[in-house]
């Protein structure tokens, strides 16, 4: 009897494109045609769900998808525990504290006032460092916070720094390296560990080859 396909959540956007490219190089081909959000690979061994990045941990946590590709920033914000069975070579970025160029002056305020999408990370980071912090939750275009005077600082992911520069902002401190992981629901792993271990081994080998090919 053919086994059920492994259920896999992918985040919309660049991470999905990279992941599909990598999986395609391993012979796992699929596409989300006509705005569909569910796709099976040609072998029928994998079923992929296309979900919003920040919702991905919820799907994996509840076992709707067994596996997922997710950044450590999103995992941390979810507050959920997953098995992280592989760290991908792509999608790395940094969580940074930024503010208007030349304007930062710690120590004058009772608490650091920070606008961010990453409220849990920001609060925990500064609590760990015994720094009082006031966090303002934003859902996007965080750079506007200091520009419009909502808060002097932001905590956000910085890849190239172009958006910061364009808005007259600069990195004050790099807080943490963010990596992209293959996450797995623990119960799902326990019931499918042989297949998942094999898949992880294949991913490790496949990604090394894929990186070599791309460098050519």
């Amino acid at each position, binding site marked *: 009897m053919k086994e059920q396909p492994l259920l896999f959540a992918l985040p919309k956007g660049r991470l999905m494109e990279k992941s599909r490219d990598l999986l395609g190089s391993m012979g796992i081909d699929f596409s989300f045609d006509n705005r569909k959000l569910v796709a099976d690979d040609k072998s029928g061994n994998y079923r992929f769900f296309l979900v919003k990045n920040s919702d991905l941990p919820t799907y994996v946590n509840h076992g709707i998808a067994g596996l997922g590709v997710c950044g450590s920033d999103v995992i941390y914000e979810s507050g959920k525990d997953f098995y992280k069975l592989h760290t991908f070579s792509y999608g790395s970025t940094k969580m940074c504290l930024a503010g208007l160029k030349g304007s930062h002056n710690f120590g004058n305020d009772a608490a650091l006032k920070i606008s961010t999408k990453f409220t849990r990370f920001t609060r925990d980071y500064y609590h760990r460092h015994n720094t009082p912090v006031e966090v303002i939750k934003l859902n996007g275009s965080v750079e506007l916070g200091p520009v419009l005077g909502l808060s002097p600082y932001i905590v956000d992911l910085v890849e190239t720094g172009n958006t910061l520069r364009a808005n007259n902002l600069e990195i004050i401190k790099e807080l943490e390296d963010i990596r992209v992981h293959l996450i797995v629901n623990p*119960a799902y792993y326990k019931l499918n560990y042989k297949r998942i271990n094999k898949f992880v081994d294949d991913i490790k080998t496949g990604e090394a080859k894929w990186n070599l090919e791309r460098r050519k």
Partner: protein
Amino acid sequence: MKIPQGSESFFFEEAYIHRKLTEAIQNLFNSWGYLPVETPVFDLFDVYRTLIPESDADKIYRLIDREGDLLMLRSDITLFLARQMGLILSDKDLPARICYSDSILRHQNSDDISHNEFFQSGIELVGKAGFSGDMEVLLLLNKVIELLDIKAEIHLGSHALFNQVFRTFSEQQKAEILRMTELREFRALTEYCSSVSGAQKAEAEAELFSFIGSADELETLMNVKSDGREKITGLFGEDAAGELKYLIKIARNLEKAGFTGNFQIDLSEVGSQAYHTGIVFQVYMHGMDSAVISGGRYDGLLSKFGIDAPSVGFSLLQRKIEPGIGSKERFSKPADVTEINDKDIINAFNKAEKLRNEGKTVTL
């Protein structure tokens, strides 16, 4: 209409199946000599404070009574049961076989759909140490799985093995290693343990606790030789090897008893509760996001409540399992309901009683 997050109500056929299943589970427990116990809905928080893992503490509902004492609502039946047993049991009552079916109350986040985890049925075997106690509970566990008719897998590990292998580590270090083991963060575990164990032994520790497999596969792992001696015994000592042999012995005996369920020795099962001391196990069910049955041995827990008795038991998240049970018609409400059409209510009542005595379901 607003409903508080985390509350659950269910009705009619669903509630009927729930009650019938609860009855069937309790009947099974009773037939093994287990008698029911009812625990209070709330108790003093200070009694349990040190026994609750930090990760669980924020899920507990707490309230202050009129005398200013901090109370907690029942969030874990085993803990509340242990206190009650400490109050009523003495050595002459042992071994005591106890069963329960009851609800628990925990805080739930808005993205958490686990409200179906709030009804637990289970057993505790108090005062029966070692192999015979562990086997009794595992054999009964298998009977419960048979009764539920679910496709499930039992994963058996050992907290005693964990304590043996990491005996030279501090309690704080052990808590961190336990967390890494549960999350299968074995690369991080190797790095963390290297400073105490040395690089080679730390790798072996990670390899050991990543093991999932059959008794045969564990035996193969144990027979690996290094310098003419079993590698595991050489690295971790006779006592740790003894704990592994104990798990194999259990697995072999379960096979002899015709154990029907899928069964794995899983050394990453180390017991998330602070009170575990011996075997620990979880049951996983296809289509479920987390374990549906958890259990293990906790020989030191009752001594905290006034009676020093070894204990072992398990608890099932019954509401979580209910949608997936097999042959559900066993617990379904009666299909045929006879309606008596008689304007004279006393005549109707008498007719209905006659039919009810024949086993029929009758409405007036």
